[in-house]
């Protein structure tokens, strides 16, 4: 029985989502607890998987007993388990925040949320490249529907870009997968890594083309510079809790880069090792610069946060392209931190929008949010995201800078990292001043009369996520040990390959 734990993170949301859609006419009072309980169980399963991976190493689930590389396998290694936990932790505050009334503004939020989780978990678990594409499509189609949740001009307009760009990206994904299959004759990623390691010289160019196409696809999801312009409009227009959920969406692209490129184009790949890293380095720095400008130019809180997502994507991709164990450890820590903290601030932005009435979260002098609790939560989130001590952002940034080292090549990186912190601090100070200090007090009555469709939004879910930042710092030692082992396993994927292919794997390659 216990070996079936591996597939639960996919099956549980699948069945919960199906039931929620089947009874889509049911009352919200009934759907909310179902969604929440399913997500709590999911969190439990994810934590159990994480503990098991820490104890017993990489776990493999062979679907239908079709032996790898002929069938599809699910693989849980440290990175997958980490991503599962990040997602499950994120899901619960999002559901709590939506259940306060925003789920009434559209249809089927709870079912869509479960399908979104299913797509995310599947993408994190699968060990098969085409299966990764399928789960990408599942998580994307759920996210298409969630992005327009509630409707309205801005959401439909942003969604148009998001959907069409991602459909184009999917086409490229299939081309790349087809090309890799045509050359290597396998879809199992572990097997493919071995085939690429023993690639005949005449096929290198084809595989390089496919690898770079995959990089384009993942960079589109992760919103790296030339491909990331869809992100600010999409995240800023989505309902605040859904934008919080989308904090994990751009990290899926990053996960895929770590997973696919770490495995297929790692040290074993010979002439293809480190494919695209030098290119991504400069693109990542440019992304950071653009993000900094966007943060400074934002005119409302959610746009500001969307640009912060871009900054963090640039930071993470820069960390990835450094390619060392220290850099990847730091990048993974920063990924956990930035996912949760961006989500926390999106949830706080939701509270601000709900309380300010027509002014929403724009930085104009209008009704201010007088609640000290919201203000303090905002300060905590801003401190974490801008990278000031004592919260987790500081640890993440310090680790990344330490991993980069202080040499001449890294000057641009250091300058951009420090500027990103400064810009974040400036922008958040300005935001906090206009949202919490200036203007008349927004009381509940004006807010409700000004816009009757504005549902209430509790602060508690955001506080849950902010508490995770404290946890990240307090438990820093064990967490960093875990992440260092994760980075080791990513750079030396032999353990994963042996776990998937078993005895067929010979250490010499092929």
């Amino acid at each position: 029985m216990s070996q079936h734990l591996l597939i639960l993170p996919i099956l549980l949301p699948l069945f919960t989502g199906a039931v929620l859609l089947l009874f889509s006419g049911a009352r919200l009072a009934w759907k909310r607890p179902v969604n929440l309980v399913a997500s709590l169980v999911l969190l439990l399963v994810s934590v159990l998987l994480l503990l098991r991976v820490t104890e017993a190493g990489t776990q493999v689930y062979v679907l239908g007993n079709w032996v790898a590389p002929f069938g599809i396998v699910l693989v849980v290694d440290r990175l997958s388990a980490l991503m599962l936990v990040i997602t499950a932790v994120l899901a619960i505050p999002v559901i709590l925040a939506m259940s306060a009334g925003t789920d009434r503004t559209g249809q089927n939020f709870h079912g869509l949320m479960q399908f979104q989780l299913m797509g995310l978990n599947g993408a994190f678990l699968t060990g098969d490249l085409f299966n990764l594409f399928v789960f990408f499509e599942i998580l994307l189609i759920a996210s298409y529907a969630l992005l327009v949740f509630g409707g309205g001009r801005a959401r439909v307009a942003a969604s148009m870009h998001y959907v069409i760009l991602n459909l184009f990206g999917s086409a490229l994904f299939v081309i790349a997968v087809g090309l890799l299959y045509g050359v290597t004759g396998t879809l199992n990623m572990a097997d493919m890594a071995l085939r690429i390691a023993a690639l005949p010289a005449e096929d290198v160019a084809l595989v390089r083309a496919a690898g770079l196409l995959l990089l384009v696809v993942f960079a589109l999801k992760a919103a790296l510079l030339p491909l990331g312009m869809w992100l600010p409009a999409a995240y800023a227009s989505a309902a605040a809790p859904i934008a919080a959920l989308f904090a994990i969406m751009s990290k899926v692209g990053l996960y895929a880069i770590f997973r696919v490129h770490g495995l297929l184009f790692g040290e074993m790949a010979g002439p293809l090792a480190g494919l695209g890293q030098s290119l991504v380095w400069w693109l990542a720095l440019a992304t950071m610069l653009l993000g900094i400008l966007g943060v400074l130019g934002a005119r409302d809180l959610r746009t500001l946060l969307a640009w912060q997502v871009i900054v963090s994507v640039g930071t993470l991709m820069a960390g990835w392209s450094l390619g060392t164990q220290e850099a990847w450890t730091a990048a993974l820590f920063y990924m956990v931190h930035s996912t949760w903290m961006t989500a926390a601030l999106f949830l706080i932005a939701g509270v601000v929008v709900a309380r300010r009435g027509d002014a929403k979260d724009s930085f104009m002098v209008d009704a201010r949010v007088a609640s000290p609790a919201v203000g303090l939560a905002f300060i905590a989130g801003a401190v974490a995201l801008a990278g000031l001590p004592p919260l987790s952002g500081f640890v993440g940034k310090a680790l990344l800078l330490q991993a980069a080292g202080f040499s001449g090549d890294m000057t641009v990186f250091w300058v951009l990292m420090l500027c990103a912190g400064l810009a974040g601090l400036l922008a958040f100070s300005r935001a906090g001043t206009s949202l919490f200090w200036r203007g008349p007090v927004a009381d509940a009555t004006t807010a409700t009369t000004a816009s009757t469709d504005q549902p209430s939004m509790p602060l508690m879910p955001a506080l849950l996520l902010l508490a995770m930042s404290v946890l990240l710092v307090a438990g820093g030692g064990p967490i960093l040990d875990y992440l260092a082992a994760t980075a080791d396993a990513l750079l030396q994927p032999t353990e994963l390959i042996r776990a998937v292919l078993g005895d067929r794997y010979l250490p010499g390659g092929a």
Partner: protein
Amino acid sequence: MELLMAVSIGVLTACGIYLMLRARTFPVVMGLMMLGYAVNLFLFSMGRLATEAPAVIGRAETHADPLPQALVLTAIVIGFAMTAYVVILIIRGRKTLEHDYVDDRVNERDHGVAEQGLSKRAVPMPPTPASAETDGEPRP
């Protein structure tokens, strides 16, 4: 046959990308579909092209690789679902945005600026002849 396949994939891709760059919703959907066909053909040809080779062992002397065919089926199903979603989205967009451009240049949170944006948009982007009467002007 190789040449025919290569040319068809190339032409379909070129048409698809050209139509997508038209930046109006209907051509973009057509472009996405063409691109989808090109991708499916490409995926199919990754199992190597062969005649008289069914994807079943033992029916003929040689057999085709069944996996790309299965992949194409999956890709067709997914492409079908996605096309259906996009069509619904553009119908919704047509109603909400009151135009059929992919790029909603107004990009404002409220409807107040919508009309001003529409008049601006009509100038740089000449409508296609067939739809000139309906698409160029704001709806009543």
